């Protein structure tokens, strides 16, 4: 028997819309983001996909996404390990300042290292797997960078594209 995880990225937030770097910092879902998540909720309902357990990062945009998907009806566990990568001094600042956006390959020391991000996600997945039984399905609401990096690492698929929001993988 297998355990199934549905990894969902949160809906669009104010900082996403204004192209502000949003890693460890947080902003609320905007109206479009709420509608996007409602569409994800409807998708799961139409496909009769049922979640036995629900997990989310501790950041409010992920919790809000989970609460909409589960129609505010499921208790859920918040895990600090599911949080987005920390972008250090770039947090809350304009995206065009990020080094990779202007051909700068330097890594700022205040940014969380990619290996650490993947390691955190692996720990979170272990904890989630321990929390569900064989044959069960869990909803996991998280963030684009960490989820994509984990999927690339776990499935040995370096070309896995970034997650637009909210996209689900299972």
């Amino acid at each position: 028997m297998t355990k199934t995880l549905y990894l969902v990225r949160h809906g669009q937030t104010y900082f996403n819309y204004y192209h502000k770097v949003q890693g460890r910092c947080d902003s609320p879902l905007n109206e479009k983001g709420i509608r996007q998540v409602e569409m994800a909720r409807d998708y799961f309902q139409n496909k009769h996909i049922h979640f036995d357990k629900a997990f989310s990062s501790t950041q409010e945009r992920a919790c809000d996404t989970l609460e909409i998907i589960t129609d505010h009806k499921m208790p859920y566990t918040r895990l600090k390990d599911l949080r987005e990568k920390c972008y250090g001094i770039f947090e809350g600042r304009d995206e065009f300042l990020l080094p990779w956006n202007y051909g700068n390959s330097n890594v700022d020391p205040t940014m969380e290292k990619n290996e650490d991000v993947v390691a955190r996600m692996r720990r979170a997945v272990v904890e989630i797997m321990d929390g569900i039984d064989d044959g069960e399905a869990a909803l996991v609401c998280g963030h684009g960078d960490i989820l994509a990096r984990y999927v690339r690492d776990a499935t040995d698929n370096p070309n896995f594209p970034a997650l637009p929001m909210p996209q689900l993988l299972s």
Partner: protein
Amino acid sequence: MTINLYLVRHGQTLFNKEHRMQGSCDSALTPLGVKQIEATRDYFAQNGIAFDRAYCSTQERASDTLEIIAGPEMKYDRLKELKEKDYGIYEGRNILLWPFRRLVGSSTIEDDREVTERMERGMNLILRDAQDGENILVVGHGDSMGHYIRERAGGNKFPGFHNAEFALLQSDGNEVEYEENVWPAKDVRIDQITGN
């Protein structure tokens, strides 16, 4: 019936330190912020104040603060009503821009009356479940808690909250009265170089 409500403001966050408006957006507690909250936690322990119930806003800086004060074993409820005021287009921006709200973007900012009304709804939810003699921890935010105290708890002269400062309110189940503020973290400092 007497219920003791301890309204605590979260510790210093990155955006606080960088002098950026932080309302509906959120950023992590800094090392100083954590130390400030630990001082507040120690104050409660030294004065024999144990909490029967705990609540915080849904924002992570509040839940992180609560978990430090009440410990990892305490069960708590997160309430959206206790969130900070939404500063609209000023969110995350330098506080020096704030005076320009009279000219630009005031319609994007949450109205003060709405803030007070939702805080009252949140506090009423808390009071509804509270029992006589209980100590209740409520971790929230400076502006929204400040409005509630000034407009609904008779604290018209309430000066405001520093990071990790708390206000004690007492209630008979219906009316809420502001008693005092205490700032155990007033002299807490951190060495920028060693981090201690």
